[in-house]
């Protein structure tokens, strides 16, 4: 770190900068209160068990979103507990009808991160005023500026930093006419629909002629499908949940008209979601559509046997608080045993019947081996698999069915489309075909009247058409290798493969395979997930108690009958955003005017969305187009992404992205490169609709609401006072721009959108209404209403105004809104999660064992079509070439893991957690240590082929070496090393920064060991950069996952 000649603040004077919480008026005014308490001689009553000192909300210390019971002392969050109404925190949760006056002394469970959340909220390094950079990008020199000035500069642009003209949003908002936008959007779709290059070219010319007066509104008139210049505003987010997500989309997509609103899904479980999406595509009007972005997890409260693959519910996996009790009870009562397939001996593995230390990246090989054995030994559920349509499933009392027996055409030696009945002349209608005892039968998959079953293994020719059944194709994939060959690939003994497969098929529907990031974050992630979920299909356990369940939530956006506020109709000025997105998602390369040759310049993702690792690198490459402004909300791609260091160079260069605005509670590893940082409210000060996770079988909608007064400054927008927050930033910019959908009449005639409450309270009313008329919650009685008001007596009008709230929702819904908020959301009772032998909230329809849509998708990097069935793919780069760094001497395989005391980037400020685990370690097997001459406690640097120096280059003169401490254990597969995520920071209060000319010292307890601090190592910068893309990590080009677990590294003693 450079020596600073600016006046340096001692720890005592640290508190004097008003930009951070540590120096704000709030903390300074509260410093004296403990001595008031000392002065009281009588035994202080334990105030925290009084109902009026308790508010319910939702934790955000990780993404499990457990319920939270916040105990307040004099307006401060004093103690956090679990919410007993929530099935996350108490199993069974208490009846939703219970009065909050009766549950003050009943606390639910909460993991250590949840307990420590107080330190996230009261972190002295929290930003409370708007900051503008005073030096170069990433120099970490800041000045405080007024909110109004920041909004003005962002909207109007100008020479804001003495570096040249920065475009303002008013420039980027080029296309403002919704009618014109809709017309253009339709015509672009028409261009895409043209089949030949000549037709496409002609259509482009026609477009240019038709819109000759508006060509300046397009990014590139020769490529109208890039869309309008509006698309050069990109809004990316990290940890975002409902409510705020609708607000960001309203601003970016509906009102501003940019297609570029993207989340982080591919850095989390990416391919897990998109493989499940592909499995959930339904056949509607001749095409596969409606696939849901979701996945399934095991119903751990009732399962008898679970195989956890790359998942550790005692440490993460959404999450210990809600899953560990059901798992523990199962172990104790003897109901359940489970196996853990993981290169690391996790806490979950420590309670397992079997720990299978698999070679990372070969998970599909184990799944296919098990599939092979199960089919060979006929241990699959033949009855389930033979059901071709809904009627057959219903007749067998099965909630789901699959296309195992549907006939697939073999074209040029590969499975392609399903055979259509028309092709055999069986009928003129659009029907599929099965064989019944050798005879082809046409059917409609959704037919409820005529049950159709089919032969399971078909490999034949009918009328000259070569066909195989879905199950036959799976069998051929699984039997393409012997058990011994699969075993050699994944290094799992044949005996273990057979035992796993036998156990898995010995519990009827009460067995499940439950997978997570360890399976999905590989270059072959999509097919890994597909293979494991195919195992679940072999026993048909979806929607069965003890089998696979999906998440189920109460809708908050008002699309259901009986709900009072339908947000789809609440943006009268809505426009149509169109064009290829910056991440090239949900569109086929071949359809666009950019199609040239294979490989494409960067991957296209027709089957995925929210491809986090593509946003900044694509902007860096200017492909498909350069961008002008980037907004980042609660996200740190630099820290979170594998090879996140590749983002730094691009962020640091104003020529690549001229304007960067961050909404953040701190100056973190990514927001340090922003031009402006707008402080946000912490999760205890604001709203969100947190959604659910697949292992929760009850229907729920946890609601995050303000429980403490905001700690950020107050500003005025649309004449209303509100705290500095994401909402204030968006509304402020909307006001300055004159964006439709905001301000007076923003929701419609006479319905203003001038304060965030008007957005969120409407959503609470929707949740109170439920799914359909008759599903409303009761009215809060007078006692509950009184409690509601008293418990919020410490909240200022900027965030709590009962009069305003009542006016927003109306008399009819007011007491129902109170009822819901008094309980921290809406939660079905425990028994409502189940219905006899089934899970109540069912997926309930077709699950694709064979995916036609996938089979018709072309890999934009190779020009080859994708396989529509589970296969094993070895590690490959984005263009399909093998990566063999081990041949260059990189002899260790790097993975990561989660500890329950840390979340990816935001728990480093929690000293209570650091007290338990102050630093992470580089976990290594003693055999490797011996071979390398290392001992316990040695310091080593991690280097890889794409990062031979082993450093994070911060592009500001500082490099952070990836140095960590070796910890030896037999609990990891030899040849594999791992580190826990969340440590080794160089921002977020870890290092010095300058605000208004004064240096704020960083805290070495948060700082990377490589910088002389005590907080261990963050080695994502060692993860392999894709050799073709050069500025991005390895990717799963099929499902989109950012690859964490396929890097070979070396460690060097320091």
């Amino acid at each position, binding site marked *: 770190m450079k020596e600073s000649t600016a006046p340096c603040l001692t720890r005592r004077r640290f508190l004097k900068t008003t930009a951070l919480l540590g120096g704000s008026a709030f903390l300074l005014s509260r410093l004296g209160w*403990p001595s008031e*308490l*000392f002065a*009281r001689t009588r*035994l*202080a009553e*334990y*105030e*925290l*068990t009084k109902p009026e000192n308790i508010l319910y909300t939702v934790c955000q210390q990780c993404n499990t979103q457990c319920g939270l019971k916040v105990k307040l*002392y004099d307006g*401060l*969050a*004093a*103690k956090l*507990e*679990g919410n*007993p109404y929530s099935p996350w925190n*108490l*199993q*069974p949760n*208490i009846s939703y009808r219970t009065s909050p006056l*009766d549950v003050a*002394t*009943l*606390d*639910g*469970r*909460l*993991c250590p991160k949840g*307990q420590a959340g*107080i*330190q996230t909220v*009261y972190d*002295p390094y929290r930003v409370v005023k708007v900051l503008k950079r005073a030096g170069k990008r990433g120099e970490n020199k800041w000045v405080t500026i007024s909110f109004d000035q920041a909004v003005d500069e962002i909207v109007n642009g100008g020479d804001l930093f003495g570096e040249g003209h920065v475009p303002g949003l008013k420039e980027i908002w080029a296309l403002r006419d919704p009618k014109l936008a809709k017309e253009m959007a339709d015509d672009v779709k028409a261009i895409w629909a043209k089949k030949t290059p000549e037709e496409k070219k002609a259509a482009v010319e026609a477009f240019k002629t038709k819109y000759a007066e508006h060509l300046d509104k397009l990014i590139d008139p020769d490529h109208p499908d890039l869309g309008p210049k509006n698309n050069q505003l990109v809004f990316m987010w990290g940890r975002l949940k409902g409510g705020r997500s609708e607000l960001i989309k309203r601003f970016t997509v509906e009102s501003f008209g940019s297609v570029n609103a993207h989340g982080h899904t591919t850095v989390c479980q990416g391919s897990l979601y998109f493989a499940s999406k592909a499995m959930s595509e339904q056949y509607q009007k001749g095409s596969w559509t409606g696939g849901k972005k979701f996945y399934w997890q095991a119903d751990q409260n009732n399962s008898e046997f679970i195989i956890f693959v790359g998942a550790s519910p*005692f440490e993460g996996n959404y999450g*210990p*608080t809600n899953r*560990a*009790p059901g798992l*523990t*009870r199962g172990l104790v009562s003897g109901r359940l045993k489970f196996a853990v397939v993981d290169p690391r001996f996790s806490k979950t593995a420590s309670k397992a019947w079997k720990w299978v230390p698999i070679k990372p990246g070969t998970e599909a090989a184990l799944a296919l081996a098990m599939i092979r054995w199960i089919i060979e030994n006929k241990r699959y559920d033949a009855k389930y698999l033979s059901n071709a349509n809904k009627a057959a499933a219903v007749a067998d009392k099965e909630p789901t069915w699959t296309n195992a027996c549907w006939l697939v055409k073999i074209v040029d030696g590969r499975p392609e489309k399903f055979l259509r009945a028309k092709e055999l002349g069986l009928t003129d209608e659009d029907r599929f075909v099965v064989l019944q005892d050798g005879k082809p039968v046409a059917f409609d998959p959704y037919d409820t009247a005529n049950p159709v079953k089919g032969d399971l293994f078909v490999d034949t020719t009918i009328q000259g058409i070569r066909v195989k059944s879905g199950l036959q194709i799976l069998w051929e994939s699984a039997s393409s290798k012997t058990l011994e060959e699969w075993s050699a690939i994944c290094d799992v003994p044949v005996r273990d493969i057979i035992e796993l497969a036998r156990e898995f098929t010995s519990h009827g529907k009460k067995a499940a395979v439950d997978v997570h990031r360890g399976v999905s974050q590989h270059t072959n992630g999509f097919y890994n997930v597909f293979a494991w979920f195919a195992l679940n299909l072999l026993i048909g356990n979806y929607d069965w108690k003890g089998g696979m369940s999906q998440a189920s939530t109460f809708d908050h956006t008002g699309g259901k009958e009986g709900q009072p506020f339908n947000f789809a109709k609440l943006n009268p000025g809505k426009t149509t955003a169109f064009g290829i997105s910056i991440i090239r998602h949900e569109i086929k390369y071949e359809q666009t005017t950019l199609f040239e040759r294979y490989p494409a310049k960067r991957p296209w993702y027709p089957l995925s969305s929210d491809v986090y690792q593509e946003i900044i690198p694509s902007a860096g490459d200017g492909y498909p187009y350069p961008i002008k402004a980037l907004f980042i909300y609660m996200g740190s791609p630099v820290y979170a992404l594998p090879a996140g260091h590749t983002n730094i160079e691009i962020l640091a260069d104003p020529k690549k992205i001229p304007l960067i605005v961050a909404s953040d509670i701190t100056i973190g590893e990514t927001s340090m490169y922003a031009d402006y940082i707008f402080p946000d409210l912490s999760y205890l000060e604001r709203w969100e609709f947190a959604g659910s996770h697949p292992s929760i079988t009850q229907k729920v909608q946890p609601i995050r609401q303000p429980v403490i007064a905001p700690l950020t400054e107050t500003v005025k927008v649309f004449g209303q006072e509100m705290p500095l927050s994401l909402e204030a930033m968006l509304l402020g910019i909307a006001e300055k721009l004159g964006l439709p959908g905001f301000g007076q009449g923003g929701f419609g005639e006479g319905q203003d959108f001038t304060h965030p409450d008007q957005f969120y309270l409407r959503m609470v009313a929707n949740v109170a209404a439920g799914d359909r008329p008759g599903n409303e919650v009761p009215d809060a009685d007078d006692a509950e209403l009184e409690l509601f008001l008293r418990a919020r007596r410490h909240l200022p009008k900027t965030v709590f105004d009962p009069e305003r709230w009542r006016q927003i929702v109306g008399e009819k819904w007011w007491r129902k809104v109170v009822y819901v908020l008094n309980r921290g959301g809406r939660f079905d009772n425990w028994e409502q999660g189940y219905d006899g032998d089934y899970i109540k909230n069912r997926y309930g329809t077709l699950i694709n064992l064979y995916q036609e849509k996938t089979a018709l998708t072309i890999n934009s990097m190779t020009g080859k079509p994708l396989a529509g069935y589970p296969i094993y793919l070895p590690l490959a780069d984005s263009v399909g070439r093998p990566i063999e760094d081990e041949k260059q001497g990189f002899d260790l395989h790097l993975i990561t893991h989660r500890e329950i005391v840390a979340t990816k980037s935001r728990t480093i400020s929690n*000293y209570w957690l650091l007290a338990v685990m102050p630093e992470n370690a580089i976990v290594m097997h003693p055999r490797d240590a011996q071979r390398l001459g290392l001992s316990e406690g040695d310091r080593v640097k991690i280097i890889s082929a794409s990062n031979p120096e082993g450093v994070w280059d911060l592009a500001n003169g500082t490099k952070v070496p990836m140095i960590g401490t070796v910890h030896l254990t037999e609990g990891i597969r030899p040849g594999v090393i791992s580190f826990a995520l969340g440590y080794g920071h160089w921002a977020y209060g870890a290092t010095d920064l300058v605000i208004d000319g004064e240096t704020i010292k960083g805290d070495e307890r948060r700082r990377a060991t490589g910088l002389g601090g005590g907080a261990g190592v963050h080695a994502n910068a060692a993860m392999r950069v894709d050799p073709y893309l050069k500025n991005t990590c390895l990717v799963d080009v099929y499902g989109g996952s950012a690859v964490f677990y396929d890097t070979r590294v070396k460690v060097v003693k320091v």
Partner: protein
Amino acid sequence: MRPRSQCCRPGELGEAPRRGRAVNYERATKEAFEAARAACPYKRAVYFDDGRFYTDGTPARQAYETRPSFEYGKEWTRTAGKPPVNALRKCHFCVHRVENGELPACVTTCVGEATYFGDLSDPQSLIAQLLKENRDKVMRVYESKGTQPRVYYLTDTPVLCKSQHP
């Protein structure tokens, strides 16, 4: 007023927590306290209470013992001049919570449901029944010192465990 304790385990729901029977501290703690003082390597064992319930003449409750547990970065003070952080103390089962009808914090929050808490002197309580039913699986650490610890461990290998903590 005697301290009362809730006698249900997390997950046992329905009615509001039962109020347990008063604990006879006078008799039980006197012997234990004597033994604790003898066993303490620092010879500094003192009662934690404020004279309200337990015995006469015990030190007044210290200010830090009444403060709610959320202080952040605050320097603790103690009349003897030394901070309580890093000083040897004994778990008091969150008596401030127990007195108000709650379970100790660790029992409430354990996601593995590893613990039970209750009034041993109430034969109807879950804890009394558990210890009775599992008499051959129960152990306490350092029984030989006579400190009468209030934490009992249920284990399949009580002999082995006891031998390691005699």
